[in-house]
């Protein structure tokens, strides 16, 4: 008791801060979502889960959920694939590896807002004479027929929106996988080769299974970034419905519609979506640490 009490005291300010700002405020937000406080001034009385149900009647909510799904699928798999490919190409060591690594990772250091500025120009939807950005580049390369509306495309706009996110995050995935590849003991690979495994066989039976934890980490990190994506969308296209996602819709509900209960409901849905796979992941991590 005398041994550990000072430690507990030293961490107490942080414990209180996390308790209030993370758990207290999440609870407060949930409670607000369960009231009918649809303006700035009223008190708001308890209405249960009514807002959670009626939200689905709103066309904009359905659109933003669809968008979030398309964005998440394209972004997560795109970044995962590209990052894995880059890591695989560099895994055996290559001349100038440091430079390659530095440049692939470099977008991570830039804000999504600055990224958004340049990608809005690159993904400008104008075509033909007035085209700038990638449409102009396609035209110049003789691929003019591939010009399209990018994020303004009614069907695949959100897939285009995932491109800058992939540009920004795949270097990170590459770094994770490189660390994973390098963590596979050489003796294991050697042993497999001696047993007559081909290089591909070594990769499939030795390396891949050992990379599972890394892949899971990458999935969780990309997934939770994707579900709360906000900066990038606002920087590229503002508050337009064509690229609406839950986080932007929530911002609109709070600041433009002045509807706290609706904003809190949308926020609660985002929290739930992220929690569904972050909580099991954290529990799994804790268990793995205890075992080792």
């Amino acid at each position, binding site marked *: 008791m005398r041994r550990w009490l000072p430690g507990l005291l030293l961490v107490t300010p942080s414990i209180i801060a996390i308790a209030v700002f993370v758990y207290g405020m999440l609870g407060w937000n949930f409670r607000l979502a369960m009231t009918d406080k649809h303006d700035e001034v009223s008190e708001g009385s308890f209405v249960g889960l009514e807002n959670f149900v009626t939200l689905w009647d709103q066309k904009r909510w359905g659109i933003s959920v669809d968008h979030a799904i398309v964005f998440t699928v394209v972004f997560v798999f795109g970044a995962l694939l590209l990052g894995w490919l880059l890591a695989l190409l560099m895994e055996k060591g290559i001349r100038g590896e440091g430079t390659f690594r530095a440049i692939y990772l470099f977008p991570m250091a830039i804000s999504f807002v600055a990224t958004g500025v340049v990608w809005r120009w690159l993904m400008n939807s104008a075509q033909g004479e007035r085209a700038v950005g990638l449409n102009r580049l396609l035209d110049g390369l003789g691929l003019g027929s591939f010009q399209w509306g990018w994020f303004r495309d009614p069907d695949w706009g959100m897939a285009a929106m995932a491109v800058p996110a992939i540009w920004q995050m795949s270097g990170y995935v590459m770094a994770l996988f490189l660390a994973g590849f390098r963590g596979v003991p050489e003796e294991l690979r050697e042993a497999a080769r001696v047993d007559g495994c081909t290089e591909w066989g070594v990769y499939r039976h030795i390396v891949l299974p050992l990379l599972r934890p890394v892949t899971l980490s990458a999935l969780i990190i990309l997934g939770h970034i994707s579900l709360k994506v906000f900066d990038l969308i606002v920087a590229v296209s503002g508050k337009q419905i064509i690229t609406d996602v839950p986080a932007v819709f929530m911002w609109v509900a709070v600041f433009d519609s002045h509807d*706290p209960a609706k904003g809190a409901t949308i926020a609660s849905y985002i929290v739930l979506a992220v929690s569904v796979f972050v909580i099991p992941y954290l529990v799994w991590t804790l268990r793995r640490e205890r075992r080792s």
Partner: protein
Amino acid sequence: MTTATKTPPAPGPVRAADPGARARRRARLSRGLRLTVLLVFLVVFLIPIYVLLVTSFKPLTEADPSRAWALPEVWTFEPWRVAWEKLAPGIWNSVLLAVPGSLISAALGSMNGYVLSKWRFPGADVLFTLFLFGMFIPYQGVMIPLVQLLVELNEITRDLTGASGVFYGAIPGLLLAHVVYGIPICTLIFRNYYVTIPDELIEAARVDGAGMLRTYRSVVLPVSGPAFAVVVIWQFTSLWNDFLFAVFLTGPQSWPTTVMLNNIAGAQTVPYSQQMAAALLASIPTMIIYVLLGRFFMRGLMAGALKG
């Protein structure tokens, strides 16, 4: 190699020697192929940077779409000058936010990490996991209560000191939010770093009669340099690049760089050259850090993946 024996070599050995050469040739080919693919991706990755740089030096007379990808015929600093004028107040706000913010975060993280790794109390692991969840929460889920709390704090400080608008719509409120929500990641980085300090060192200090704080000062702090570098750099970058908290918690007087940049770029009237120059200006501090201290930045990144 002697030519005493004139018998032609049997096919077997020659074929056996061949695979070695073929394997070497194949290795060379595969290396070349890998390098080519990596170079192609390198070019693709640098396209946005090329666009930013080239466009930011173009005079207004060269704003024609047909010259979109061309180098400027006349290089001009004018867009940079105008962008700097527009962005300067935001950059100053970001400095006021990110410098103290990253230092306070590091101090907190170091203390927490030390206790959770070397001076543990019952339930430390569970507590740490509860902290970590705070790293992954979507901040949308706390934003409305946070705004309400900061508004309350504004009123309390006004009643006490007469100063108005200290927390909500001002830098201190944004700073508070960043420091609090930065606790999990900073604690994680320091904890993972301190775990590698041998327990014998801590025990020896204990046997010598040093208490918790003495041990921290004399044993732990002197070797904490790298972890401090990682956390300060990581937090500085996060605070500098943050947009979500800034949009919700600050007003025109206290807008940091990202919000200012978004306002400049969102205006239809601002020419592309100025937008790109502003985007580059806004990114300069974090880019310098990345180029000079990328190693530490990388380690912060890796910590986010929960790898000890």
